[in-house]
């Protein structure tokens, strides 16, 4: 493998007695969109600020393009940041904001103007060049911030909650725009976000963080389908999780789940022993609802306790004889699903799932 663009080696950061980041090591490849995903206070922003040079690691080292950044001040790093608040200079026009970083570049005034025009074109803000930041909309401000951060052609762009301040419609649109801009410029992105959907759609790889620790790194699909802990499983989407005991290990693993009052099957994983206590995790959308009894394994009988209609899909809550609730997500493929729905309140239903969809978590 070629040298990664960013290498974080055993980095920890403490503020007084509070440890914001604990022994994080990770690598980001050139041209990648890498997300740091986690709730507030998980250390993702601190990690980003260390990459930008605003904070120094208490322990550990950060390499960017093979160069140790320990002694490099923010103004000399080949890294630019897009701030959550955008941090546009209020006393400068859009044009001046975008061109600000270029003052430090050895280039002629004409070249500089050219680059600014190019950047404004990239984010489609050319007609607004002479406006001040308070005279444009939130979405436009976000694009000015992006253009400003990209103007000096950094090797690495850090984005702190890039979409958090936008409304839902604009956010979806901007997400795709960010991806297309990344593709066109080839700049490596590191995105900090608390929004799992945003992380899933934007990124090539995600690092899920919790209390200063990286819990799992992987492609969005891998992290979603194969979480390595209850925390990750819960953080990315919703999940049904129950305590279980391993009964037998074969092609699939059979576990006894007291909450379900029966034995069920789950995907095979290495390193389990019969009798071990694990967590059985099952995503709501992997479960199918049947209105009549079904033969076979992995059939769970219950009664519809609650249902929520979202339009394109519905969420059912099925009560088991033990009193446990199982969440099931079903797509409303048929028109008129509101009236002609899969199941109604207090209907008796049978739930099934393919054994490979259930995962066993040790942590």
């Amino acid at each position, binding site marked *: 493998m070629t040298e990664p663009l960013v290498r974080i080696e055993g980095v920890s950061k403490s503020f007084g007695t509070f440890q914001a980041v604990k022994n994080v090591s990770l690598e980001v490849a050139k041209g990648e969109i890498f997300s740091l995903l986690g709730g507030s206070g998980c250390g993702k922003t601190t990690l980003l600020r260390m990459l930008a040079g605003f904070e120094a690691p208490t322990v550990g080292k950060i390499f960017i393009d093979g160069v140790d950044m320990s002694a490099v001040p923010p103004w000399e790093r080949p890294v630019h940041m897009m701030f959550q608040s955008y941090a546009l*200079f209020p006393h400068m026009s859009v044009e001046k904001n975008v061109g600000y970083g270029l003052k430090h570049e050895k280039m002629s005034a004409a070249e500089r103007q050219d680059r600014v025009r190019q950047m404004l074109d990239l984010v489609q803000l050319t007609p607004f060049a002479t406006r001040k930041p308070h005279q444009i909309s939130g979405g436009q401000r976000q694009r000015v911030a992006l253009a400003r951060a990209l103007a000096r052609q950094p090797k690495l762009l850090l984005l702190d909650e890039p979409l958090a301040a936008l409304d839902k419609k604009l956010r979806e649109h901007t997400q795709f725009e960010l991806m297309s801009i990344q593709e066109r410029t080839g700049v490596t992105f590191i995105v900090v976000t608390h929004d799992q959907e945003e992380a899933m759609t934007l990124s090539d790889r995600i690092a899920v963080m919790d209390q200063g620790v990286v819990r799992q790194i992987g492609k969005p699909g891998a992290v979603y389908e194969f979480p390595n802990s209850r925390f990750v499983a819960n953080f990315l989407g919703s999940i049904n999780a129950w305590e279980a005991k391993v009964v037998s290990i074969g092609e699939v693993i059979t576990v006894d789940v007291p909450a379900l009052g029966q034995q069920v099957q789950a995907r095979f994983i290495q390193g389990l022993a019969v009798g071990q206590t694990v967590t059985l995790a099952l995503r709501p959308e992997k479960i199918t609802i049947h209105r009549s009894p079904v033969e076979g394994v992995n059939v769970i009988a219950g009664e519809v306790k609650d249902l929520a209609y979202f339009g394109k899909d519905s969420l059912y809550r099925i009560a088991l004889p033990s009193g446990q609730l199982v969440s099931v997500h079903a797509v409303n493929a048929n028109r008129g699903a509101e009236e002609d729905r899969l199941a109604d309140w207090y209907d008796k239903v049978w739930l099934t799932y393919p054994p490979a969809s259930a995962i066993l978590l040790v942590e």
Partner: protein
Amino acid sequence: MGRWFHRRGWSDIIIGAPYVWLLVFFLIPFLIVVAMSFATRTSTAPPFGYGGENPLFNLAGYARLFTDALYIRAFVTSLINAAVAMVLCLAVGYPMALGLTRVEKGWRNILLMLVILPFWTSFLLRVYAWMGLMGANSWFNRLISGAWNWLVPQAWAVTSVPLMHTNFAVVLVMVYTYLPFMILPLYANLERLDPTLDEAAMDLGSRPFAVFRDVTLPQSIPGIIAGGMLVFIPAAGELVIPTLVGDSSSPMIGRVISDEFASARDWPMASSVAVALLILMVGPMMVYSHFEARAQTKEKSE
């Protein structure tokens, strides 16, 4: 009664109160002074009059402002002293205000308190303390004259450094007195600035000094103007400081007004000087706020 003391009535009363105050205690007295400036000096009591053998509009006072070197010199001295004091206050106060925004919250209140602390003792007492320090026989004066004598050849030796009764002393004490008026509005302005803007500039390649020049300084101009006016305006009309520590052969304008009123009993002349001072102070301010307002409406309409 009930007609006035309902909800709307109260808000009218509250909004109106400061206007009534300004009308009674500023506008009317000012109009009296303006009227007095057109009167003629007489030996009656009060010592001025209109009509009769005197002209109704006597412009002699204003004419003397432009012909008598005493007044011109006094105006020039006042403006220079006030301007120098303002610039020095800015030079000393800006770093202090900026420093205040950078210290920890707990310390900030203590340091702000220290800035205001001098106001707790009598202003006159503090000026007298300076007089004591600057006097020819004070330890302070002996210290600096000793240092001077040690540094320079014997031929230039002095017995004491002339500090008292100079414009230097006036400026020094004015800077000392008015410094909080510069620091507080500047601090209020700088404290509101978003620190992430500094980080953004740094991130885009600016060293700390360039960050200050490009981001902090331009955004603090309103604070500089507010602090500058709060220092310049009272400093230009200052009476007590130049009287106590100043050079009596080149008086400032406040001293001239006071002398005309009290010793010379020439009320019309004193009034003319006072009106001229006000025009000199308010004129530039009005021009500034006019352009400021126009710039703002222009920005909004864009």
